[in-house]
């Protein structure tokens, strides 16, 4: 049987030799362009966000999804691209985004009330075309409602952005896009970072929630669940694999009003 299969394979390769060098070897139909998300550890892990594909970032609240989104918006608007954010629960904070470096005049913000409005708005934006990044933020939609979105919806979104320079970024609490997403990252919070402005007291002598405590940020871990857009030289195109993940250090931003005198002395 094996000899018959080998003979058949040899015959087919001979016939097609003039037209196709290796007909039984899978060739990537297109070279996938990836761009930096703005977080080096994530970019090293994933190779960047793929253009013309659906990327899914999921995780529970406080895992760092919004921080990832802000970093990506900073990166894309700094590259003079026009971005769109479909905010299913109107949770975006423009003041913090602007402080982080997002160019708000390059951002189209769609403030929705429910998942249905968000999906319809995303569809319209993809059809309109021309956006460097379209982010669909379903983080605050209950997971059971997002699960009820049929899989063909994600497939249609993916096909709609295929062969375009648009990055479609989906944020939700659980993985819903499944194989429709070319890149899936799972985030989780590891530990929070608080700093104490009182230098003279020992840490274990401090009362619970002492005054002068500052939220410095937190550490998240990003785990790559799926990446089908890596370079063919290093990974198979459609392989699913897990990595140890990457550490994502997230730092809070203080405006002038919020910095206490103690924090200033520490700095």
């Amino acid at each position, binding site marked *: 049987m094996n000899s018959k299969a080998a003979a058949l394979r040899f015959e087919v390769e001979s016939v097609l030799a003039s037209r196709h060098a290796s007909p039984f070897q899978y060739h990537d139909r297109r070279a996938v362009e990836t761009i930096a998300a*703005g*977080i*080096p*550890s994530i970019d090293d892990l994933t190779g960047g966000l793929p253009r013309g594909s659906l990327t899914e970032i999921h995780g529970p*609240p*406080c*895992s760092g*999804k*919004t*921080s*990832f989104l*802000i*970093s990506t918006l*900073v990166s894309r608007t*700094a*590259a*003079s691209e*026009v971005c769109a954010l479909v905010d299913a629960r*109107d*949770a975006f*904070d*423009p*003041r*913090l985004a602007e*402080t*982080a*470096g*997002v*160019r*708000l*005049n*390059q951002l*189209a*913000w*769609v*403030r*929705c009330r429910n998942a249905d*409005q968000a999906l319809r*708005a995303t569809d319209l*934006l993809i*059809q*309109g*075309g*021309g*956006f460097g990044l379209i982010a669909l933020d379903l*983080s605050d939609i209950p997971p059971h409602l997002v699960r009820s979105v049929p899989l063909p919806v994600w497939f249609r979104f993916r096909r709609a952005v295929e062969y375009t*320079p648009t990055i479609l970024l989906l944020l939700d609490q659980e993985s819903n896009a499944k194989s429709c997403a070319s890149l899936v990252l799972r985030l989780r919070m590891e530990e*929070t970072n*608080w700093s104490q402005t009182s230098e003279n007291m020992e840490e274990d002598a401090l009362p*619970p*929630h002492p005054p002068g*405590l500052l*939220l410095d940020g*937190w550490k998240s871990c990003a785990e790559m669940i799926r990446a089908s857009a890596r370079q063919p030289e290093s990974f198979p195109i459609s392989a699913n694999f897990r990595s140890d993940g990457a*550490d994502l*250090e*997230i*730092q809070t931003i203080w405006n002038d*009003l919020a910095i*206490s005198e103690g924090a200033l002395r520490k700095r």
Partner: protein
Amino acid sequence: MAFASIFVPNFMVQAVVRAEPALRERALALIDGNPPLCSVVAIDEKAARAGIECGMTKTNAAQFPGVEMRPRSRPQEKTAHAALLDAGWSVSPKIEDTAEDAIALDLSGLDHLFHSEEEIAAHLVQRSSGCGLLPNVAVASNIETALLAARGFTGITVIPPGKETQYLSILPVGVLPLSGETAETLSRWGVHTCGAFADLPILQISERLGQEGVHLHALARGAESRSLNVAEQESSFEEEMELDDAVEELDPLSFLLGRLLDQLCARLTARSLAAASIRVRFELQPAFENALDPRKEPALHKRLPATYETRIELPIPVRDSKMLLKLLRLRLQSNPPAAPVQKMALVAESARPRAMQGGLFLPSFPEPDKLELTIARIANVVGEGNVGSPSLADTHCPDGFRMQRFRIPFDVGKPGDGGGSSFRRERRNDFFKAAAGFRAFRPPVPASMELHEHRPQRVIFQGMRGRVLAASGPWRTSGDWWRENPWQQEEWDLEIDFRSLASRDSSAGCQTVRGIYRFYYDALRQSWFVRGIYD
């Protein structure tokens, strides 16, 4: 120096046909006057062959089969005249608004653009046809000859210099601006053509007809010359249509609006301009007629507005009628008129079309006209005001921003500075720190707080009870005390360990969720709220 004249024969009929091109293939008669004394005031060639005459009563004219009857429309005559002017301005900047159905143009300087006067005349015919009119065009060395030739000859006529008398000789004297008395006198004399009139001795003409006769004699010989009275160019473009029956449904209304937009865009194109904004004005069916409609509920018999107005501002000037129609439809879908429409008018404010220079190495951005449509469609889904780009207000008030219309920034495509903000990314030992994201709760969620020594210990909100693991605060802010809505708040960043109150079933176990939230105490309302969560 040469002059051209554009004359629209049977102007009243052409004005109506311009709005309904399908009527061009039918016999058409226009009716005017107060009922019951309506009579036929204008007819086209097919109606004339069918036997209809001007002055016939409406009742008599209605007996002829296959003849379309339409009321005379002064608004459409006004817009047709404006279209005629636009056709003239598309070729020469110096035109004279001679009459409602005729204009004159100065062709000096156009020999650099056109090879011959025939080519200029053909171009004028083409431009006029694009605006929905079928004119006669004449070119001559003086204005009056050109005007007479356009009135008298069909199609394109070019009169070589010195041949004016010869060309005008075969025209009937009716093309001259005769008074009633002079026309009768010439008829009694048996003078029926301009040539016969021009052959009469000038001295006798002066004795019998006076200065008017001398002037007419010079016109008939093509010897009268004068300067052009240059008209000022209009910057706004208006198209109107009055409907026989009021229209209520969106689809037929869109069809009529599409026709008006086609005419508007054709005029803009003729002048190399585009629409920067479109203003729509509808005159609505009076409320009394609505009250008699048995389909309407009594609750709707209240006073309805008499007009409906809306305005569409465009990010860049456009003259694509299809795109404008789509924008208008979306606007009417989201904000429909309160009553059926009886008369509609569109006014376009003109501007120079903007040319955007693309680049091979620049990032792509949405096409402005497509983007406008996309934004309008999204606004229909999420509501006007919920789509745009945020603009921060000059205040420290939380959520101090407003939404503004999203436009492609002019400087998009230029190299950025990596984000102009006060936040400096730290990079220590290859460990990059991203900015912390924050998700706002809009509106803020009410909460209950247990304090111990003025510091939060436990919180309850949205059915969850949590224990405070770490707290940073209070951060006191206040402002706008001089306004009607002052604010005074005490903010806390709390790391909370939640346990859901809903999951009290011990067999299922309680779910614990940990998160960092921002709470605040509203000193004016004396209540605790959750502003949002760090993510």
